[in-house]
């Protein structure tokens, strides 16, 4: 299996690992062993949906210790620029060299709604910060003792639902690319036409795009995402298939594999977000013919 950075521009396979609440690491290690050799890297989420969990820095380290390369996700919700730079340097010291910049969901959406949000930086300024560190300086222009070499990426949502939201995504993507984003991972895609149109619109941005895939577990999950998850739209025909299927999980795996196959030639990789169902990722990849 190629390293994540070697794979960029060819065809990159990533998936997502969500740490649990608490400090039991048995499941993380088990998932690392299952996914090792099947994907180029696994993203480790950072307090996803503003819900408190084990931190992504420690989890990324555990994955790498167990043979699975990590992409450290970092949001700007919980850290100011000092903490962000410090965590980035800590990551580099542990040999974690892939990072993903995210704004972060608003704190009121999670399980600590009374927390104070930080948002000292935004996701574009985060990339500028990584670039500055890679050049051997901190944000105040002071020299670093030991210089990191991060491969930073960012996210984009091809399914933004208004003209303003869509165009703002693209303008922000352009800024991110200019500030050194080496890859983009997308929000979950379920519609070939929507994604094809998006890839044409951003053909001037010469950075690999890894299309996001969320395997469905049942029809209710699809309906829930359509209602509550920004930019995700599961077409009715998939919802019907999930509703009618006797073995729902198998049907979800089948649909995910079909999506991966159908989207493969439009982009430069796939990012499978299984949301607690990481164990089926090898089966999805096998079904799609990727491994």
């Amino acid at each position: 299996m190629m390293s994540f950075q070697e794979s960029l521009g060819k065809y990159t396979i990533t998936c997502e690992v969500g740490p649990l609440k608490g400090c039991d690491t048995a499941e993380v290690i088990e998932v690392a062993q299952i996914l090792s050799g099947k994907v180029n890297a696994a993203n480790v989420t950072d307090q996803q949906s503003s819900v408190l969990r084990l931190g992504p820095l420690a989890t990324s380290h555990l994955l790498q210790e167990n043979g699975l390369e990590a992409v450290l996700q970092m949001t700007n919700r919980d850290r100011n620029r000092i903490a962000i730079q410090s965590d980035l340097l800590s990551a580099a010291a542990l040999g974690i060299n892939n990072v993903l910049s995210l704004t972060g969901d608003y704190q009121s959406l999670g399980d600590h709604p009374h927390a104070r949000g930080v948002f000292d930086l935004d996701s574009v300024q985060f990339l500028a910060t990584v670039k500055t560190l890679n050049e051997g300086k901190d944000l105040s222009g002071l020299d670093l003792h030991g210089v990191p070499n991060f491969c930073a990426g960012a996210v984009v949502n091809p399914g933004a639902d208004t003209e303003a939201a869509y165009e703002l995504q693209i303008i922000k993507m352009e800024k991110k690319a200019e500030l050194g984003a080496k890859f983009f991972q997308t929000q979950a895609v379920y519609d070939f036409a929507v994604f094809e149109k998006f890839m044409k619109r951003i053909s001037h941005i010469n950075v690999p795009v890894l299309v996001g895939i969320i395997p469905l577990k049942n029809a209710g999950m699809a309906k829930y995402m359509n209602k509550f998850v920004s930019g995700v739209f599961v077409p009715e025909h998939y919802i019907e298939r999930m509703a009618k299927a006797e073995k729902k999980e198998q049907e979800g795996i089948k649909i995910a594999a079909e999506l991966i196959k159908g989207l493969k030639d439009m982009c430069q990789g796939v990012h499978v977000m299984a949301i607690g169902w990481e164990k089926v990722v090898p089966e999805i990849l096998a079904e799609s013919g990727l491994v």
Partner: protein
Amino acid sequence: MLLSEFKQMEEILEYLKNDNRVFLLGCKGCAEASGTGGIADVEGMKVKLEAEGKEVTGFTTVDFLCQKALVKSRLAPLTSQVMEADSVLVASCGIGVQASANSINKYCRPLCNTISLGDQRGKWVSFERCRECGDCVLDYTGGICPITKCSKSLLNGACGGGSKGKCEVTSEMDCGWELIYDRLKGLNQLDKLKVYIPPKDYAKFHVPDKLINSTLYDIEFTEEGGV
């Protein structure tokens, strides 16, 4: 009471690199008391801009720029001077700039940074808000403030969490960045969004030492002037 101070001429001239003709608008409320929005202050700015080769098509002051009805009635007789200009430069707090941008069909640019409430709460009847960040970005955003209109105070565009034009925090709130996009599109200024805005200098949020224990500013009467 919102205390404001003029931005550096260098920054103002950068905003005006493509504009030769400008209309100046001052505010006789808090801004006049701060030494930025009174008629004498506006005239002083006119002299400075003319020295830099800019043509001032007209100038005036409004009693309270945060009152949009006053802005519109004061400017109605001056419409031709406003429309001849490439942009309107507003000497006031961030609310005055936003209220002007909302009332005038012309790009409105901030001349000032709003630095503090000076520990006094004023009262204005409008939806514009200013967090006195001391480093006004309204020139980049079409006169809509991303610090107060975006839940996360993002400076380089929307977070992507919104849905149908509404904020992810509550569907009762518009996505501030979508408002900014629509405003800039209407003014044919979408290129503004391509500018990278670096991290904010939060040190400017602090009330300046000299103000903490100072006496209150008076809003003094000044003779009506301008055009």
